[in-house]
């Protein structure tokens, strides 16, 4: 299983763009990258997933360089409600399997 490394915490002011980078140096060819968001006292919620280049949805963008050894979750114009823990996962594409969540990045949005 590919190990991921993320910053433990980040602070941002409201209205700013936030970029959270995850390192996954030993990602395998068939691995995909997924990001989840977790609010206090709730289960994680899927945000976005990708394999390479750039993926965008209504919530966030995901940037993956050509070597795929890292990925960056970009949250545009964050608000206080984006305060949460963000987890980066790397796992086999399309497979049922053991999935490892790291400790995540705790994002604190400041008014």
């Amino acid at each position, binding site marked *: 299983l590919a190990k991921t490394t993320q910053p433990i915490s980040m602070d941002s002011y409201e209205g700013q763009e936030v970029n959270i980078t995850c390192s996954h140096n030993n990602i395998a060819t068939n691995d995909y990258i997924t990001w989840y968001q977790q609010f206090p*006292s709730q*289960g994680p919620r*899927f945000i976005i997933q990708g394999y390479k280049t750039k993926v965008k949805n209504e919530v966030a963008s995901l940037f993956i360089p050509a070597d795929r050894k890292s990925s960056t979750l970009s949250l545009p114009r964050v608000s206080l409600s984006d305060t949460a823990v963000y*987890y980066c996962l790397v796992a086999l*594409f399309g497979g*049922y399997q*053991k999935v*490892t969540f790291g400790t995540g990045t705790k994002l604190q949005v400041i008014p």
Partner: protein
Amino acid sequence: GAGVSQSPSNKVTEKGKDVELRCDPISGHTALYWYRQSLGQGLEFLIYFQGNSAPDKSGLPSDRFSAERTGGSVSTLTIQRTQQEDSAVYLCASSSPRDRNEQYFGPGTRLTVT
């Protein structure tokens, strides 16, 4: 539609007692996952089911932990002879055959062992 549900939402038990935690996945979701999250920590994988079988039980912390799934639907996580270190939030998730990469999580069961 209905999401993943878990019961009970909270459970307080005495050390040494057995507990059963229940998970009802989203209808039609063939994969089911159990995780544990201690206060302020990340998620710890426990076990996953593909249908009724559990290909990977490597995350179960000890032989006091067991899980089963019947009818490809409801799953029960059982902890025997609970210990204080078992106190945590136990989260269940499920995923569909069409999009196995996206897990839908339940609200969790908060277990406190006194």
